[in-house]
């Protein structure tokens, strides 16, 4: 395994970034995601209005990969529609499961595509998908309430 294909500059930077790491002032959605085997724990906070993600942030602890993945995800979904965010989560999880994506889909994932190599590291896959799974679960819960 090549370390630089995992801990790329982009990922390292995102892992250290505190831009999205704080509480929102008035989140209307918040969900906890946990990885028991790592002890990782993040709480995702979203402010969703009229089907759009007005604001998003997270708090919690985790490894570089989970932190970077979360930071990149929030970059991507902020301002997007819930539908689009769910679409992106679906793409991301498919990529990590090593399913073939089209070039367009890869482009849609933007910086998140940099996490593709994690799919070759079974022990770390859980770290990369933690935030995306939490996002999916958050929307599923809302859906369940309707």
């Amino acid at each position, binding site marked *: *395994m*090549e*370390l630089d294909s*995992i*801990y790329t*500059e982009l990922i*390292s*930077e995102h*892992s*250290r970034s505190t831009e999205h790491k704080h509480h929102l002032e008035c989140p209307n959605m918040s969900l906890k995601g946990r990885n028991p*085997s*790592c*002890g*990782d724990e993040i709480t995702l906070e979203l402010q969703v209005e009229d089907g759009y993600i007005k604001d998003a942030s997270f708090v919690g*602890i*985790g*490894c*570089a*990969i989970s932190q970077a993945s979360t930071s990149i995800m929030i970059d991507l979904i902020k301002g997007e529609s819930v539908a689009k965010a769910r679409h992106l989560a679906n793409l991301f999880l498919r990529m990590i499961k090593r399913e073939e994506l089209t070039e367009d889909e890869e482009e849609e994932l933007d910086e998140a595509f940099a996490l593709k190599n994690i799919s070759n*590291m079974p*022990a*770390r896959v859980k*770290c990369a998908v933690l935030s995306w799974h939490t996002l999916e679960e958050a929307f599923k819960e809302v859906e369940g309430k309707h």
Partner: protein
Amino acid sequence: MNNTVKFKADFPLLGKPMGNNPLVYLDNGATTQKPGEVIKAITEYYDSFNANPHRGAYELSIKATDIYENARIKTQQFINAKYSHEIIFTKNATESLNLVAYSYGLSHVGAGDEVLIAISEHHSNLVPWQYVCQMKGATLKYIYLEEDHNLSQRDIEEKITEKTKVVAVAQVSNVLGLINPVKEIVERAHKAGAVVVVDGSQSVPHMAVDVQDMDADFFVFSGHKMLSPMGIGVLYGKEALLNDMPPFLMGGDMIDYVEEQHTDYAPLPAKFEAGTQNVGGAAGLSAAIDYLNRVGFEYIEKQEKELTKYAISRMKEMDYIELYGCDSSRDNKTGIVTFNVKDVHPHDVSTIMDAHGVAIRAGHHCAQPLMIYLKQNATCRASFYFYNSKEDVDKFIEALSKVRGVLGLGA
């Protein structure tokens, strides 16, 4: 040729590369590698002696029985038990501990009683006691730690009372790597009328153990952490206690007479060994004990102590390393070094070390209550065995020194 080079050559896996690097295996606390002669003992068993022991009157079955029962006698001698029927084979230390909890615990712990364990216990010596206490309305109490991460002497003195029915404690913690004063604990517990379960998973592979001298009531360990194959574990129990206990697993070979509505159980050790046992595993365990006896615990302890001392001294030079259990004032440190790299999650540490061929553990090490107590989400652990060399430590230190850089953090 120095000793570790000589020993390493006995272990097929230790000569294999890991990716582009030679393997530096430092996860011996999780499981050890197996010398060729242990692997050969398994192969030979299946090639030449395989049969269901105890059940056949034909030659092959008699040979299988011999192999199995000789392993019991070897194990008895290895830990200096009084009788070979005090040795019960299980699949691992976890099953051994569950056997004690279900069979002894559920029948001897009652409402208002107390079970006392250390905060540093492995989940396998913790969750079963939670279960016993919940089932019986008893209270589970903890021995906490001193500043230097040794067991609190005050807790040992104050928490063993007439209410205490069972004290369960590791001889060596798999995270802190410190030898606990089990002999003293046993003495205090016996005075209070409690029995003591000693978890020897991290001691038996690394030091000479004498269960009679220690006077433990129960003592458990796993073969796979001492050069043996997986799937074989040991429970030692004092004859009188084992005789009085109800059986745990029930079925073939642990009975004398079965009628439609009633069963008479077999005497020890069969009473606790239901179903077809892992004879191949026992053959491997025998070979492992032979191998360890040949290396000798004097050498093993010395080598591990040197490696640990050297590793800790090198790590103390790195100001971004935090160490746990490495400052004991009691000269009781074994070959387990638990640490964290500042600002780096243990899983990143272990991934980066792995890329350099260095295998260490990262996570909660099946000791979450200890992690909570230490206020750590997770930690890294390097654990040595006698086949590790000073060069292994050097490679470990070298890889460790690169961790923060890979993540773009200053050294």
